[in-house]
Structure formats: structure tokens, C-alpha cells
């Protein structure tokens, strides 16, 4: 028997390998260190992320297949790699002090964040449905554990269990979809599927359509699209806040990377079949997310519904799926990373042990007591609402612009109207902060250096992308130029 040894191209897996090794080292360091000194673990993980970022930069612009076409390291994947790496970095910076205050400062936390990031990166560069599935599972299992990391808190446990059960269910949907696609096309390779579909004369194969629908459900769950969003508010509310920040950006970015690659590239010939479905899902997701967010009193729940709405905006870009549409998805993801992480960062600074200070009421009068914190929160919320000159405005502008250009005018109108609705609940927090009298004594906040760095990165990102968007849009356009 002759076995073909797959071509090994370690260099193209550079960022993932660096991060995996860093994660293993963090695990070992944290278990051999005494209980009180866990700082080396977080520095090591930050170092790993920096090296992985540098390694991603060196791979930029040289798209190539590796490992028997299992991965495709192109700019599109690398762009998402960088987004999730930045997300992981900011999330770690935000976690250091938060975990200390919660009395849960364990090195495993950082190792799990790194493992989850590796999974996300594999989803972004995977060029085979199997690789994408493996990445998704690596990511999800780490996130299930992270959601329940504050194991003495009931809500954290509830959040982890809910996410695990529903997540496992959705993984089964995705896998079933992959099986159907394999049955219909005879391959799990994204390029192979695309070639098969472009040569096929008969595209109404029920098996193919069933597979496409099941994949849509699987990805829809991970990006929290309506009607697969039920888990989002409970999981986001119960998970540790820094984990919520990480999963609301990282998981979404990675899932969208795979979603776009599978639907807008591999299953492109089925576009007439899925575009209407996607249209309806986008409208439902935007509308339900925004309307439900209005009624929330807990700020983490509100941001959970807001994240559902943002998934809807990004799906508008997928409906358009033109070159502009996809590059605006990338742009939006980058902008969303900074503004959403920033907003959660402010929540972490203000939050007190035992889930205190998490109601919007508690923010009353914060503008006078902590002007800097209130100003930061206002900037992030303005950006999420899409008010210039912030990143959120430019992102929405490009997304809706792409939809109009492709002729989906009603979709863009519904999107803009939704965006108007969202202004109400984002501004309500600002109003509460600046115009209400404090309802209770402030207990004092702590500015840890790592948190300050994280917030500065987030605010610079939000404003810079908002004021000077063109270099980032060029970057996003470059990313899809050599896609597949």
C-alpha cells in the first residue's frame, strides 16, 4: 500500500502554531506557579498573541493552499485572524483585574482564550468543511468552559450549560448539513463544491438544498441570527463580562468568516436559492434584536440584543455579497470589534463583585462622578448606534451602500430604520448617565493599568476608523481581492 504523505507547510500555519504553543505553555506555567502569582501566565498569553499577529502580517498578500487543500491562507482569512487576535488581546487585558476582583484568577482562563482563538483562526482559514467544523468545535468547547468560569456563581453555570446544550445541538445541524453537501457533491472541499456546482446542470437537488439549509442553521446559531438567537441574552448575561466581550466579537467574527466563505464563495451558484432566506433572516435579526433591546433593564442583556441586531446588519452585507458587500462585512467586523469590546470594558470597570452595578439604573449620574468613564461609554454607544464620526457610522454606511448598489433598496431602508430604533436604547444609557441623579452611592472604581490600555486601544480604534476610514476599507478590499 502506498500512502500519500500530505505536504507539510508549517510556515502557512505560523499564527495558529504560535498561539497553540503559547496556550500549552500558559497552561504549564499556570499549573507550576504558586496560587498567588499568576501574572506570568497573562503576559505569556499576550506575548503569544503579539507574535501570532506579527506572523499573520508576514503571511499577508501571499495566498496559498496548504496541507492538501485543507486550509487556504489568503488575505480574507488573515484579516479575520487579525480581528480575532486583537479581540483576544483586548479581552485578556480586560480580564486580568476583573478575574482578580472576582477571586477567580486562574491561568487556565488565558489558556482557554488562546485555544478558542486558535479555533476561530482555523474557521477563518479553513478551505474545507471539515477544517471549518474542527475549528468551530475547538472554539466552542473552550467558550463553553469560559462561560462557566465563575463556577461559584449560579448564573455563570446556567450560562455555560445552556450554551453547551444548544451549541452541541447546532453543531449537529452543521455536521448534518456538511454530510448532505458531501452526499450531493461528493466533496467537502470548498473549491471542489464550487467547481461541482458551476458544472452541474441540475441545481435543484433536494439533498443539496437540505444541506445548504442545515448549514445556514448551524452558522446562524453561532452568529446569533433570529430565530436561532434564543440562547444569546441568557448566555451573555450569565457569562463573566470579559468572556461576554470576547464571545460577542470573536465567535461572531469567526462564524461570519466561515459563513461568508461557504455561502458567498462555495455555494455561490445556489445564491438564487438562499438569498431570499438570507434577506428574511437579516430583517428578522435586525428588527427583533433592536426591539427587544429597548425593553431591557440589564446592560449586559441590552448589549446582547444589540449584538443580535449587529449580526443582522452584517447579514445585509451577505445578502449583497458583491465585492463591496463582502469588503464592508470585513470593515464592519473590525469596527464592531473595537466598539463592542470598548462598551463591555466600561461595564467591567463599573461592575462590582456579585453582579452589582449591571442595571442601566445604576449608571445614573455617572457622568458627574466619573466623567472619563462616562465619556468613553458614550463614544462606544454612539459608535454602536452609528452616529458620525465613529467607526459604527462608516461601517453601516458601507454595508447599506452595498445593499443599495445590488438593488436591495428595501433591505437598506429597513436597516436604516432599525438603526434609528437602536439610537433610542443606546442614547438612553447616555441620558441616564448625564441627566439623572444618582440612585445610590457609588462604591468607587478601580482603574487597572491593563484595563486602561485596553480601553485606549478600543477608543482609538473606534475613532480612527470613524474619522479616517479609507485605509481600513482599502485593507478590507485588498483582503477579498485574492479570495479563493
Amino acid at each position: 500500500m502506498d500512502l500519500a504523505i500530505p505536504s507539510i507547510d508549517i510556515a502557512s500555519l505560523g499564527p495558529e502554531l504560535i498561539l497553540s504553543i503559547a496556550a500549552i505553555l500558559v497552561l504549564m506555567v499556570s499549573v507550576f506557579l504558586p496560587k498567588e502569582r499568576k501574572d506570568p501566565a497573562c503576559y505569556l498569553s499576550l506575548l503569544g498573541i503579539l507574535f501570532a499577529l506579527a506572523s499573520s502580517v508576514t503571511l499577508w498578500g501571499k495566498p496559498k493552499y496548504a496541507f492538501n487543500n485543507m486550509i487556504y491562507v489568503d488575505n480574507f482569512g488573515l484579516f479575520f485572524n487579525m480581528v480575532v487576535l486583537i479581540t483576544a488581546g483586548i479581552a485578556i487585558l480586560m480580564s486580568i483585574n476583573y478575574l482578580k476582583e472576582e477571586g477567580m484568577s486562574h491561568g487556565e482562563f488565558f489558556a482557554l482564550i488562546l485555544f478558542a482563538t486558535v479555533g476561530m483562526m482555523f474557521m477563518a482559514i479553513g478551505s474545507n468543511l471539515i477544517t471549518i467544523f474542527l475549528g468551530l468545535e475547538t472554539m466552542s468547547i473552550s467558550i463553553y468552559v469560559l462561560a462557566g468560569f465563575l463556577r461559584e456563581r449560579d448564573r455563570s453555570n446556567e450560562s455555560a450549560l445552556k450554551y453547551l446544550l444548544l451549541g452541541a445541538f447546532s453543531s449537529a445541524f452543521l455536521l448534518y448539513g456538511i454530510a448532505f453537501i458531501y452526499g450531493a457533491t461528493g466533496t467537502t472541499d470548498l473549491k471542489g463544491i464550487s467547481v461541482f456546482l458551476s458544472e452541474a446542470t441540475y441545481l435543484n437537488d433536494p439533498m443539496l438544498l437540505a444541506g445548504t439549509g442545515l448549514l445556514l442553521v448551524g452558522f446562524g446559531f453561532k452568529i446569533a441570527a433570529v430565530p436561532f438567537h434564543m440562547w444569546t441574552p441568557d448566555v451573555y448575561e450569565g457569562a463573566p463580562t470579559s468572556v461576554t466581550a470576547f464571545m460577542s466579537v470573536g465567535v461572531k467574527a469567526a462564524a461570519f468568516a466561515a459563513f461568508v466563505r461557504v455561502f458567498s464563495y462555495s455555494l455561490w451558484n445556489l445564491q438564487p436559492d438562499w438569498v431570499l432566506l438570507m434577506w428574511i433572516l437579516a430583517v428578522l435579526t435586525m428588527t427583533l434584536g433592536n426591539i427587544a433591546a429597548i425593553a431591557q433593564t440589564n446592560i449586559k442583556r441590552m448589549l446582547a440584543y444589540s449584538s443580535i441586531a449587529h449580526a443582522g446588519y452584517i447579514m445585509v452585507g451577505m445578502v449583497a455579497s458583491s465585492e463591496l458587500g463582502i469588503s464592508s462585512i470585513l470593515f464592519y467586523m473590525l469596527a464592531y470589534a473595537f466598539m463592542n469590546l470598548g462598551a463591555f470594558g466600561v461595564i467591567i470597570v463599573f461592575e462590582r463583585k456579585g453582579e452589582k452595578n449591571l442595571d442601566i439604573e445604576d449608571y445614573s449620574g455617572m457622568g458627574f462622578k466619573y466623567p472619563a468613564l462616562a465619556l468613553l461609554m458614550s463614544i462606544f454607544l454612539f459608535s454602536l448606534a452609528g452616529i458620525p464620526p465613529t467607526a459604527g457610522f462608516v461601517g453601516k454606511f458601507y454595508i447599506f451602500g452595498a445593499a443599495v448598489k445590488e438593488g436591495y433598496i428595501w433591505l437598506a431602508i429597513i436597516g436604516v430604520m432599525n438603526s434609528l430604533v437602536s439610537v433610542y436604547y443606546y442614547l438612553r444609557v447616555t441620558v441616564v448617565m448625564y441627566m439623572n441623579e444618582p440612585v445610590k452611592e457609588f462604591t468607587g472604581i478601580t482603574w487597572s493599568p491593563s484595563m486602561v490600555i485596553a480601553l485606549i486601544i478600543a477608543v482609538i480604534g473606534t475613532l480612527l476608523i470613524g474619522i479616517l476610514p479609507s485605509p481600513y476599507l482599502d485593507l478590507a478590499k485588498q483582503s477579498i481581492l485574492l479570495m479563493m
Partner: protein
Amino acid sequence: MPIDYIPILAFLIFALMFAVGTIAMSSIVGTKKTTPEKMMPYECGVDPIGSARRRFPVKFFIIAVLFIIFDIEAVFLYPWAVIFKDLKVFGFIEMGIFILILFVGLIYAWKKGALEWE
């Protein structure tokens, strides 16, 4: 082509019939004379004391999880052993990395005290 899957369907039906058939046959044909010894979980061995449905230490759970990991390791090691010669050095290095990662997990579990019974 769906026609290619007929053998699988035939096999499924056969497996189902075999399983249902043997159980049905034994209940129809078999004699039903019960004695207290026959009703016990183990006909020979230690006599059961109390109900099996009771709480047991969570330590068993950790051991079970560790067992799964090394069980899966064995599952991957056997096929490798079979085609060891074909895979040459490549397979050796790959499996080395695989076992190394699991070894790191073992060290972690060990240091965390998962292997201590008390």
C-alpha cells in the same frame, strides 16, 4: 447515485431484523423459570448490597474523563501501529506531537491533583 446505497440499506434492515429477531425468538422459545439467583445482576460473584442508584464520589467522574482521553489516544495509536511502515518518519513525528500534547494534559491533571484519590 441512490442506487449505490442499496447494500447499506439492505445491511441496515438485516441488522435490525437480526437484533429484533434474536430478542423476540429468545422470549418466545426460551423457558421462563425464575429463581432468586437468576434475578440477581450477577449470578456468581459478590452479592449486591443495597441499590445501585445512589450517589457516588465525584472523583469517579474525573477518572472517567481522564479515561476517555487516553482511550481515544489508544484508538489513534492502533491504526498508526498497523501502517507504521508506510508512514515512515512522518507518522512517527506526527504521533510524537500528538502524544506530547496528551502528555502535557496528563502533567496538568497530575499537578492539579486529579490522580490523587484522597
